[in-house]
């Protein structure tokens, strides 16, 4: 699928389906070390994105990503809402008025997304947050820069999976799980898991 506005919209719709399927899993991960709402929050947000796209699909990829950003910011709440919202917002800023996303643009957008999350949430790698999925996702994506958009996103998703897995052994230092300290060890961070799920959905959609 080409990475046009319509292609990005399709990827977001696919992501919404994946989030809905994994809603309970994300709630349960958050129940273990947080407050049991991450799956509910994201599924509320992505359902709203799908509705928004039904009304009208913006003309550029940047427009679609920005619509996703503002919808997430106004519908998700909690920590994940502003963080994912900022990620999408910063990514959309990078996309400019391009009619189609190519690999360099995609990498720029991913970089901007990670920077945005870190600027807002002040988490670094190893704090057991979504940042631990985004960092390896980005470097894997950069390593696959020679491939297609689908290749890049697949590499990113693989990296995010590894990153999410790595949070199991970490002591959380940001967000609600940080209150648990060592008692959180053994649990995967829900935000890292949702990042991996989203990137996988985008990769599948790009095939």
């Amino acid at each position: 699928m080409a990475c046009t506005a319509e292609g990005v919209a399709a990827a977001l719709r696919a992501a919404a389906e994946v989030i809905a399927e994994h809603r309970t899993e994300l709630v349960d991960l958050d129940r273990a070390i947080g407050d049991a709402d991450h799956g509910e929050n994201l599924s509320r947000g992505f359902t709203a994105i799908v509705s928004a796209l039904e009304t009208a699909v913006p003309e550029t990829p940047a427009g679609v990503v920005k619509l996703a950003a503002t919808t997430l910011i106004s519908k998700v709440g909690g920590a994940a809402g502003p963080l994912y919202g900022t990620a999408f917002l910063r990514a959309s800023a990078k996309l400019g008025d391009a009619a189609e996303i190519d690999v360099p643009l995609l990498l720029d957008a991913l970089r901007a997304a990670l920077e945005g999350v870190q600027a807002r949430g002040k988490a670094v790698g190893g704090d057991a947050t979504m940042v631990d999925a985004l960092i390896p996702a980005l470097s894997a994506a950069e390593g696959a820069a020679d491939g297609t958009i689908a290749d890049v996103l697949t590499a990113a998703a693989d990296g995010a999976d590894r990153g999410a897995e790595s949070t199991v052994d970490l002591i959380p230092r940001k967000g609600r799980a940080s209150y648990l300290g060592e008692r959180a060890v053994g649990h995967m961070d829900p935000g890292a898991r949702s990042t991996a799920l989203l990137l996988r959905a985008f990769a599948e959609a790009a095939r």
Partner: protein
Amino acid sequence: MKKIINDPAAVVAESLRGLAVAHADLLRVRDDPALVVRADAPVAGKVAVVSGGGSGHEPLHGGFVGPGMLDAAVPGPVFTSPTPDAVQGAIAATTGPAGALLIVKNYTGDVLNFETAAELAAAEDLDVRSVVIDDDVAVKDSTFTAGRRGVGGTVLLEKIAGAAAERGDALDAVEALARKAIGQVRSIGVALSAPTVPHAGEPSFDLGPDEIEFGIGIHGEPGRERIPAEPADALVARMVEAVVSDLPFESGDKVLLFTNSMGGTPQLELYLAHGIAERLLAERGILVERRLVGPYITSLEMQGISLTLLKLDDELTQLWDAPVRTPALRWGI
């Protein structure tokens, strides 16, 4: 899960409908985004005091909307911070040239969403300040955590800031008083059982039949440690020690003692705990001059209590005593 609800996704909206019709003399409820606003808002010339956060902690915050306390409350979904546009809506509905004070509990989600709203308000030339309350001594305040959580002290802070705004203090003064109160308030909570979030459908954590979670948060997030159940005398002593030694509160200090039910604690037990806390404070020479006992900041049906101590001076005492008329706190009017 057995609950008196229809659809988990509609719980907050349907509950707010009940609040609106029960207290039409005091407040109005707006939908999408959900807001609870003082019936006579905006009050001309007055600093607006606005708070909010995830739902499930009732009466916090909507039950504190009314003369002498909050101008608006922003209820998010259950245990989920509201979004910036909801906060923005509350600011818009209440705030004039005198500006607004946002009272934010220190949770990543609340801080991020309220921060964004404050930025948006500033862009519209409104004078909006935020204070972040982080009174929970259960959590170590270090760079290794998201910082201390805002818990029981929030209720006292909303009363004090609300009273200051009501008597006509300017925003600088209201903000300064709020910061003073934040500096002088400390809390600790315990849980005997877990809450069940409607959309999750299962208790938020598992606690053995003889275990108590010491240092619980108001979303059922765990705290310091899990301890074996113990008699009330020992448990309350442990709580008093945690709170008193933190500020520290000292012999001769005048304080407000707030004994809070987390939602599911029988009042019989709540007053029993309160009596023990008063005795232990008296033994330390700490002078309890005001008290509040009841379910004021809850975690759905969670069984447990929290103790909050606020160090009083004449001004804080006067603001505490000032008339208030809200669904959950009322005196003097």
